[in-house]
């Protein structure tokens, strides 16, 4: 994990200290550890001279900028029409059993969080899931189990 000050400074250097640096900063924090803490939101607000409410309001608008604790690997299973028709429910069932958590929950070792998300642009190769930024199309329950096993071994 990188010190959040380092991320903030790096982004400010690239995008300036204006409002438009806000998204890159929040995205940078999420890229590092998958969620943003309250202290970090306050620090970002202070650094960019914005109100804390404004920063919180912006972060919570976007589904990929989580402000609640998430695991090291965030799994997002596409739930929209094509993936639904292709059997995303079985994939979610399989993942819930494999990880012993329900949708929306994080494993006790803080390694995995299981979420659903809207269309990810792989409708011809559903069901699909993202693990952090990595894409896994054309899933079957067996494939999903194998992929999770790889991450558990990491």
């Amino acid at each position, binding site marked *: 994990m990188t010190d959040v000050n380092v991320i903030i400074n790096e982004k400010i250097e690239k995008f300036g200290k204006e409002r438009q640096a806000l998204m890159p900063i929040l995205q940078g924090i999420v890229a590092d550890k998958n969620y943003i803490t309250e202290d970090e939101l306050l620090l970002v607000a202070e650094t960019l001279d914005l109100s804390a409410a404004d920063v919180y309001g912006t972060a919570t*608008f976007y589904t990929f900028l989580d402000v609640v604790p998430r695991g090291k690997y965030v799994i997002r299973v596409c739930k929209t029409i*094509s993936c639904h028709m292709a059997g995303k429910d079985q994939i979610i069932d399989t993942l819930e059993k494999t990880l012993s958590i329900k949708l929306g929950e994080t494993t006790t070792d803080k390694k995995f969080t299981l979420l659903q998300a809207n269309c990810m642009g792989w409708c011809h190769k559903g069901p699909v899931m993202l693990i952090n930024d990595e894409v896994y199309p054309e899933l079957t329950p067996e494939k999903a189990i194998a992929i999770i096993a790889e991450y558990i071994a990491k």
Partner: protein
Amino acid sequence: MKDKKLTKVDLIFENDGTCATTVLDKVRAMAQDDVIMEMIDSGLKGRGGAGFPTGLKWKFTKAENSFDKYIVCNADEGEPGTFKDREILDTVPEKVFVGMTIAGYSVGAKIGYLYIRAEYNFLLKKLNQKLDAFNVKIKDKGFDFTIEIRSGAGAYICGEESALFESIEGKRGEPRNKPPYPTVAGLFGKPTAINNVETLVYATMIMKYGAASFKLMGTQDSRGSKVFSVSGDTPNAGIYELELGMTVEDFVNDFGDGDTKAVQVGGASGICVPRKKFADMIIGYEGVPTGGSMMLFNSTRSMYNVLKDYLEFFAEESCGQCTPCRIGCQQLLQGIEAVKRGEKHPSYLDSLKKLAETMKLSAKCGLGQSVANPFSSIVDNFREEIIY
């Protein structure tokens, strides 16, 4: 006029390593107005779905008297059933950059932003590498233009142009009132030409082959070809570039599984075409316009489940800013659920249709305005499936 048949085209993904250099040199030698005239002449309309003539958009942006102007490439492809822009950015990113450069040159913009959805973060490493080399290349060729990449963070609404500007500016992605239109006051309040990924690649190809050859394809109202994202109940799901102007029937004959009962044209916010209308419905601006999404449903699918899926999507992705969309999406969803459970009389569907029409008139942006498309076309054509 239904003389066009399904014809496959290979323009967008055409493999030509010298395309960028040839086109950039050609454009650099032309006057700005001549480039814009060529685009207007080609009849190219925006390929993101709304279908505004690209050449006119550039003309309006150029006409604005402002030192700062911007080009934005909209790669926030979030419409369910659409995945062509991902493939384009993955396989021919340089053609997108060239299109942005042509746009920048003709309107007088110095900076171009490519706004890409967070779901496509996996493309960023490759895109950034290609872009670094490209930025150097266009400087060497004498273009005063730089392209930067900005990422989204999982919000469908940011594909709406003014919400996308808000997002680049570091704010909540809430659409603005129009007018003023982006060509007058867009990103950072400056004149902005914002185009879809595919539109910009067509701009590149039109400058390569000329407007005249582009115009030979398609119909009066729908010139050229288009990239289609085909999914659902089909043995041939994938990405196909097809000439515009074919009927839904032509399309289904090639892509259906023999049992197609409906095709959703234009994604969740598009129109559902039932089997009885396949033969008469042209895919294009004279019939059903589309951003490229073609979802096929066979007779095993419940259209109630399809509509419910769409409404859940819209209820979640509505930004919540304006009341017609925020409340309307939820009421439509709860309404069809209540009819299905028998708690409401089937005639309640007609009240819901009125609500959808009200949203079309009163919602602030395209999201709320277009929910009536799938709602009315599914309820009208598959009423019994919604009720029973």
